[in-house]
């Protein structure tokens, strides 16, 4: 059952949106969504890695020996992650400081290796690009949605701009780790209700 390129792209946005439908990549999802800025930054970094690794692996899929494919995938992914890390240090240093260890940890993000193994290794370059872009955007939007809820309630700001008057007492629980779990759980619940036929 072949899908069109557009379908490969859109599935990442809703039907298979990584953190909520596939429930993959939860570590950065929970950890960096304290603020919208961090959420978007993490999402964009992951999208870049996803697109690049998907395309390269798809291009090389016939020359990678089956037995060592995982090792080769990881080398490709780790290379792109290191590239992102260096570029972020060079151009967006304050964001790099905030995201810290979670940037190198994109290497072990299940979404990236998952897409390489499940999709890019079996499909053409264009389809893999669409898949990577869709999954990346889906991941970015999920992080942003979660971050909006957490930052607005937990800090009273949106993208570091105060949204409530000075009398607002921030609901600090939301920017702490338990708040992340509760918020993610509620979002999963909403997604499941909405997705029910």
């Amino acid at each position, binding site marked *: 059952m072949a899908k069109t390129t557009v379908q490969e792209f859109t599935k990442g946005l809703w039907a298979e949106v990584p953190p909520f439908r596939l429930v993959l990549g939860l570590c950065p999802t929970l950890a960096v969504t304290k603020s919208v800025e961090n959420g978007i930054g993490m999402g964009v970094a992951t999208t870049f890695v996803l697109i690049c690794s998907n395309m390269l692996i798809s291009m090389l899929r016939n020359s990678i020996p089956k037995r*060592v494919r995982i090792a080769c995938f990881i080398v490709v992914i780790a290379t792109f992650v290191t590239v992102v890390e260096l570029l972020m240090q060079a151009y967006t240093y304050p964001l790099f400081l905030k995201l810290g260890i979670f940037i190198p940890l994109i290497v072990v993000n299940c979404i990236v290796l998952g897409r390489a193994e499940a999709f890019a290794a079996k499909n053409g370059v264009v389809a893999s690009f669409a898949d990577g872009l869709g999954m990346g955007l889906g991941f970015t939007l999920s992080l942003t949605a979660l971050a909006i809820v957490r930052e607005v309630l937990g800090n009273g700001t949106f993208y570091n701009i105060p949204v409530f008057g000075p009398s607002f007492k921030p609901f600090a629980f939301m920017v702490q780790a338990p708040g992340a779990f509760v918020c993610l759980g509620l979002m999963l619940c909403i997604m499941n209700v909405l997705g029910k036929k």
Partner: protein
Amino acid sequence: MERGLNMREMLKLFIAVVVFSAVSGGVLATIQSATKEKIEYQQLKFVKGPTIKAIMEGSSNDPLIDRLMIQDEAAKRNIFIGEFDGKRNTVAFEVFGKGYGGVLGVIVGVNLDNDEIVGIGVTTHSETPGVGSRAKSDPSFAAQFKGKSMKDPLQIKADGGEIDAMSGATITSRGVSGAVIEATKVYERLKPVIIEKIKENKG
């Protein structure tokens, strides 16, 4: 699946992984060397930048770019140069002292013409918040060093010097003044080299 691999197949797998790793290494080395200077600049800008800018306020150049790397004993030191009234006569560099909570990084700016301190500022520290951390947040302590000569007694008053320690934070104060005294020694060692290098750069 076949059981066991013959030498030929094993060699193929081995070569595949080696080629991948080698290409990856090459790409990363290239990008690393291409971004190295930029990254160094960003680190300076966000970690030491604000302090250096405050010390060198009013300079007509960017001290973060206009800097020298000078060999000092075992280590290399970054010397930041400030240009005032068309003369590159001010230098700043980082020295370290021992505070209450660990290492204290202090940047000291010195005027090369009259050996006077133009300003100091704390960069990194792990002092008690609200007590020792005032060394960084409250400018009045650091301001005491301004205008002092490198030859003045720069110890805190309890140690026979001229600097008023911050109340409740004697150890931090002693740490900062210790770092500044360290800076006077570094300055004494390096002054001839710095002056020579600045002249060279101009010509």
